[in-house]
């Protein structure tokens, strides 16, 4: 490989050709400040518009100060990252940026977790000259079911635009207007609700400021908890237990399942359950549906559509409903675990404890913002009473715990309540890319072949590659599995399905890069993909430590079918646990 020799801050370094000054400096332990630049290695996600101009450096022989994030190293370059000229330029540009930013940090939901705030502090900005007469670009605030857009706080880093377009190919957001009024918005600066937005929340996950945040449902949850007539049931998704710790100073990948259960109980929830239980249930339903469709398909039944697509990710569901409505009979009809949980909680469990569904409030803790929208869908409520009342994100939960003075670090581990708190290792790995299909394979294999799996770990299905494929031997039947995470990757597989070129029997799709561990509601990764990888690894550890690792072995699932549902895909199961899809393009008409 061709290498380049250069000097940065008087230190010599040799780097591969194509390395930027920013990257080379990093290798030397020099952390050049930057606001807009974002690079998630391994995931092919990069945002470098070179727009913030904070990362400028001085290069010998160059007239101006080039941005280190997007300037390649060249032989003999002499780079200085902190000359007086550079420091003055950085400060002045930072003053510019702050001069066009609201100064209401005290009440901003991003306060304390805001890249802009941190940078202002780091660069030692103490005043913003000319504030008295400086115009500030202001825009209309927009609240959608999941996401709040407050563009007054936008610094035009363009990360959200990159996520929405290049990574997710959703195309809800674009840079609009020009000059001082330039910002990132949906078409016609309309509400997100009237756009193709899937609420995947990846824009929120990367926003360095408070311009894009989640809708806060804590007040509603508090109200429910305070209401003595309500029985408040909480469920928590697998990816939450490997990320929540980060909000309390633990290192990424810390498993806090026991502390999470304890904290939820301490917050006053009446029943602390686990979405993992519903994940096991999902496998029963989805796995059975897969085997049924596959069986009919192999017999030559033309009405059996193959591949079957997973349907537990609401961002993904929103995506195909908008962009591939013609394929809406291809995904599994199984509801997502969140919704299966709600449906069972407000029927089976409510009956069991003798509570009217109207007096039960189901709260979900999710790594996801699309879940907020999902639980508000009409088809997921009975007589205007939703199966899941409120969905709050990992971040919101962390804030909630802090408000309640609960010291997570010192909490003793506790268990989930029963019956909806028991789960297997298969359910735990739902939280990472490849996990759902691996869980499905564990169960489907044993049901299809009637044999016990020799090796439970399908390592061939794991990894961080955007599109993956593997062939699993189902006792002589080669089952072709496809996996995509990130909607842009999913689109590629969907295009093949639409064109009739897909070789797969089953495809797992997760809207967020990395799967739920990288969800839009998770603690911010601040551009570090190691964080996501650590969370995923933790889920596999949790799986390994579980005594039961196959969904169909969950004793409470078996009991649920015996007592209530009958068998997978029964009529009752269909009624409660399955759904249907819409052409969202027809549903979302831009209102003028």
């Amino acid at each position, binding site marked *: 490989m061709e290498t380049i020799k250069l000097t940065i801050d008087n230190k010599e370094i040799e780097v591969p050709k194509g390395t930027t000054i920013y990257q080379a400096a990093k290798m030397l332990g020099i952390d050049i400040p930057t606001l807009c630049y974002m690079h998630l290695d391994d995931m092919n996600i990069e945002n470098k518009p*070179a727009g*913030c*101009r904070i990362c400028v450096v001085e290069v010998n022989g160059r007239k*101006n100060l080039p941005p280190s994030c997007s300037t390649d190293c060249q032989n003999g370059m002499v780079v200085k990252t902190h000359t007086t000229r550079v420091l003055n*330029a950085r400060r002045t540009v930072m003053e*510019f940026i702050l*001069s066009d930013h609201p100064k209401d940090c005290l009440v901003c939901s991003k306060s304390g977790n805001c890249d802009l705030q941190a940078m202002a502090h780091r660069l030692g900005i103490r005043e913003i000259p000319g504030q008295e007469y*400086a115009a500030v670009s202001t825009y209309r605030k927009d609240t959608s079911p999941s996401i709040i857009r407050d563009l007054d706080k936008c610094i035009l880093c363009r990360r959200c635009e990159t996520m929405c377009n290049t990574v997710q190919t959703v195309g809800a957001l674009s*840079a609009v207007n*020009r000059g001082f009024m330039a910002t990132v918005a949906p078409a016609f600066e309309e509400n997100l609700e009237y756009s193709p937005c899937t609420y995947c929340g990846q824009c929120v996950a990367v926003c360095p400021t408070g311009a894009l945040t989640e809708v806060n449902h804590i007040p509603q949850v508090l109200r429910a908890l305070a209401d003595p007539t309500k029985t408040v049931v909480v469920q928590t998704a697998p990816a939450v237990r490997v990320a929540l710790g980060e909000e309390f100073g633990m290192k990424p990948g810390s498993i806090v399942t026991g502390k999470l259960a304890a904290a939820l109980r301490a917050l006053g929830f009446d029943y602390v359950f686990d979405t993992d239980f519903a994940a096991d249930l999902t496998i029963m339903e989805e796995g059975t549906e897969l085997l049924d469709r596959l069986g009919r398909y192999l017999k030559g039944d033309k009405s059996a559509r193959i591949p079957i697509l997973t349907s537990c990710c609401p961002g993904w569901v929103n995506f195909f409903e908008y962009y591939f409505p013609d394929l809406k009979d291809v995904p599994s009809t199984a509801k997502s675990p969140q919704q299966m949980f709600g449906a069972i909680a407000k029927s089976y469990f409510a009956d069991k404890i003798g509570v009217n569904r109207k007096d039960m409030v189901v709260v979900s803790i999710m790594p996801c913002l699309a879940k907020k929208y999902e639980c508000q869908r009409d088809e997921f409520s009975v007589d205007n009473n939703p199966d899941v009342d409120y969905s709050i994100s990992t971040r919101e939960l962390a804030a909630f715990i802090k408000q309640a003075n609960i010291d997570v670090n010192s909490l003793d581990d506790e268990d989930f309540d029963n019956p909806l708190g028991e789960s297997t290792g298969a359910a735990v790995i739902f939280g990472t890319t490849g996990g759902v299909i691996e869980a499905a394979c564990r169960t489907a294999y044993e049901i299809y072949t009637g044999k016990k799996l020799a090796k439970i770990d399908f390592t061939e299905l794991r990894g961080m590659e955007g599109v993956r494929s593997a062939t699993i031997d189902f006792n002589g039947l080669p089952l072709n599995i496809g996996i995509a995470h990130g909607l842009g990757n999913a689109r590629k597989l969907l295009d093949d399905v639409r064109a009739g070129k897909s070789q797969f029997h089953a495809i797992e799709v997760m809207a967020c890069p990395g799967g739920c561990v990288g969800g839009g509601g998770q603690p911010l990764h601040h551009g570090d993909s190691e964080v996501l990888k650590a969370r995923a690894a933790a889920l596999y550890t949790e799986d390994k430590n579980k005594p039961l690792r196959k969904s169909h072995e969950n004793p409470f699932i078996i009991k649920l079918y015996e007592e209530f549902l009958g068998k997978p895909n029964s009529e009752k199961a269909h009624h409660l646990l399955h759904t249907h899809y819409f052409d969202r393009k027809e549903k979302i008409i831009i209102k003028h």
Partner: protein
Amino acid sequence: MSKYSMHLLVCGGTGCHSSESDAIVCNLRDELEAKGLTDNVQVILTGCFGFCEKGPIVKVMPDNTFYVQVKPEDAQTIVEEHVIKGRKVTRLLYKDPVSKEPVSDSKHMGFFKKQLRIVLRNCGFINPENIDEYIARDGYMALGKVLSEMTPEDTIKVIKDSGQRGRGGAGFPTGLKWELARKNQSDEKYVVCNADEGDPGAFMDRSVLEGDPHSVLEAMAICGYSIGASNGLIYVRAEYPLAIHRLQVAIKQAREYGLLGNNIMGTGFNFDINLRFGAGAFVCGEETALIHSMEGLRGEPTVKPPFPAESGFRSKPTNVNNVETLAAIPVIILKGAKWYSSIGTEKSKGTKVFALAGKINNVGLIEVPMGTTLREVVFEIGGGIRNGKKFKGVQTGGPSGGCLSEKHLDIPIDYDNLIAAGSIMGSGGMIILDEDDCMVSMAKFYLDFTVEESCGKCAPCRIGNKRLNELLGQICEGKGTIEDLDRLKNMSNVIKDTALCGLGQTSPNPVLSMMENYREEFVAHVVDKKCPAGHCRSLMEYVINPDNCVGCTACARVCPVGAIKGERKETHKIDPSICIKCGSCKEKCKFDAIFIR
């Protein structure tokens, strides 16, 4: 073909066109027909003569008579007097601004005397919508020459040796640019002509496209041959409908002659040209922004490198040249590198087209050898300052350039001298300012422009220029402090240092150069709270001189806000707290009693 003994050239450039030059052509033809002279006299609608100040222009050949401000109804007189009787129509002749005497022909006009027309060689000379006239002027001979007698390397060498530098603004050597594009291997390459002339007050590209479109097409084909491209694109402003029309006609004719298309002149070389339209964004003059715009995207620039020569349009090697640069190429090929490099200064070869505008007598388009002094341009060619006012400065390079003052009048104009003087060549707009122009307001005017045209991608340009503009506004309103001048300077330098593209990096130039050259005027605004040019309203005070006031009450009656009080036949007084400084009273006063303090 009829044997014409006289040609009547009517300017069909945008300036004259909008003053009904079409009607002039029609009337002339009608008159000639009525007099049975259609076989003797030919009427030709040409491109711009450059002398826009006095348009519409009619030039009579072969005697070079130069009629100015011709109206359609003058056609009859011209035909009856000049064509038939051979008597020049004196009242339509250009009058020397100093001697007030009519000038018999263009050869005697100061405006044309110092000019050397290479780029504009055919403007105002041929009918731009007739390819034959271009061919008669050795058109497409240069293309024929390179295709039949020269290798691409030879061609690039000629351009390199000629020393020509890009006329779009930055002055990058053309030959070097071509060489870089040639070196990058690719299955496909593109030649792009940047005709997105956005600098307000510059109209040289428009004039070339309108007056001599084929020269650009020919040059693009030569470039295509040299770098190995078979596709050309012209990115032209949608605001230039006439230029677009002429280009469309020219491309059609060139294709019909086989001078564009496949197997040009039997040499096996293929090259074709298509048009892309700009849509009103100054930043698209920057080549990466231009390329994004051609790709159907927002015209936002990207960091260079990679340069377009490596990865440009559709990520293929792309060579972008400006209209004026291209228009000179065929002449350089035919006359040789040595000839071209003998014109101009050591580091800036050839000629440069300038658009003179503002407070100057001869507004128009001129072409002079590099090295001509500002004084020659302003006072000899430009005919000096209008209305006998005092010269104050020249803004060169438009909103990206700087303002040169009296002390710069004798520097020879070339790329390096202008940079040394704190300005840039830019595309060649020259706005001449006189004593009535306030430099703080001018700096603000240019910032207004940049703020409006900034794409918004990078923070220093998006926000920094806005802040510069606001601070200048404060100063104009008398709210500035002496410390603000230091802030202006620091903000300007940081924007220059950190902005992403050429637009942002040069946007503070007007402020910096005006502060440098007219510092006392800035100081007057912030310290004395006065605008010496009498332009900034907030800093003006209308006062009545009791010595002159006779108490006629005319001023009090005209004042729209009732700020003037006084008894009849007694001295009046203006209440400055009410006065809105509209100036009506001063206009009305017959006794010169009202003055501005």
